[in-house]
């Protein structure tokens, strides 16, 4: 697959940082705004997909290697289920965030907001992003990985 031309490459190059900030914003404000981990993850994946479309698969693989991608896929699930299990350990139900005692924070609502926005959503976001990029590369001409 050929690279895109100069206009598209330049615009995408300058646009990607803002797209990624926007995706992270959507992830971290999941509890209080629209969206959340899944949508934010898709936006992050979209930035990578744009990058691959503009600069080609080889360059995209250099920026986000298969190994990093795999680590991200599993870390996301680990964060998500780890927080859920923490709730069980501290005597609540699975994913019952209010039960987790955090240092410095004592308000149940605050704890819940913190864990949802900062923990669970991040886990979901990372996983969704990594899986989306993997799916995209598997279907992209010349993007198939070896594993």
């Amino acid at each position, binding site marked *: 697959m050929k690279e*895109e*031309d100069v*206009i*598209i490459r330049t*615009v995408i190059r300058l*646009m990607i940082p803002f797209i990624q900030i926007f995706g992270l914003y959507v992830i971290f404000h999941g509890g209080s705004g629209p969206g959340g981990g899944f949508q934010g993850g898709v936006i992050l994946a979209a930035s990578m997909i744009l990058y691959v479309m503009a600069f080609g698969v080889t360059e995209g693989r250099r920026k986000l290697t298969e190994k990093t991608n795999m680590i991200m896929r599993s870390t996301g699930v680990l964060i998500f289920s780890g927080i859920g299990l923490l709730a069980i350990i501290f005597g609540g139900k699975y994913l019952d965030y209010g039960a987790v005692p955090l240092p410095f924070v004592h308000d149940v609502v605050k704890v819940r907001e913190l864990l949802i926005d900062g923990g669970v959503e991040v886990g979901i976001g990372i996983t969704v992003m990594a899986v989306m990029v993997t799916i995209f590369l598997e279907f992209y001409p010349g993007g198939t990985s070896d594993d």
Partner: protein
Amino acid sequence: MLITVINVISAVFIIVGLFFIVVGTIGLLRLPDFYSRMHATGKCDTLGVGLTIIGLIIYNGFNFISVKLLFLVVFIFVANPVATHAIARAAYKVGLQPWRRQ
């Protein structure tokens, strides 16, 4: 009094913007070939949407919603010509010939 003036100004912006959007649509339907349709959509839609959102910004006053709207305008002004160009380039590479007046 001031509120009325602001409302009128923003209404003017929105109406002019909508006018350009309508013109863009008419152009899309009426023009004879693909490349000339690009002119109608690429310019009129960009400015139409831009003007309408600027009208909304004026109506809304200065706060964070306006800032987000401004981002949207900037994004559209950057992304729309690029998208237009991308379509035109793809059509040209496939070998689509432009229409000429006889």
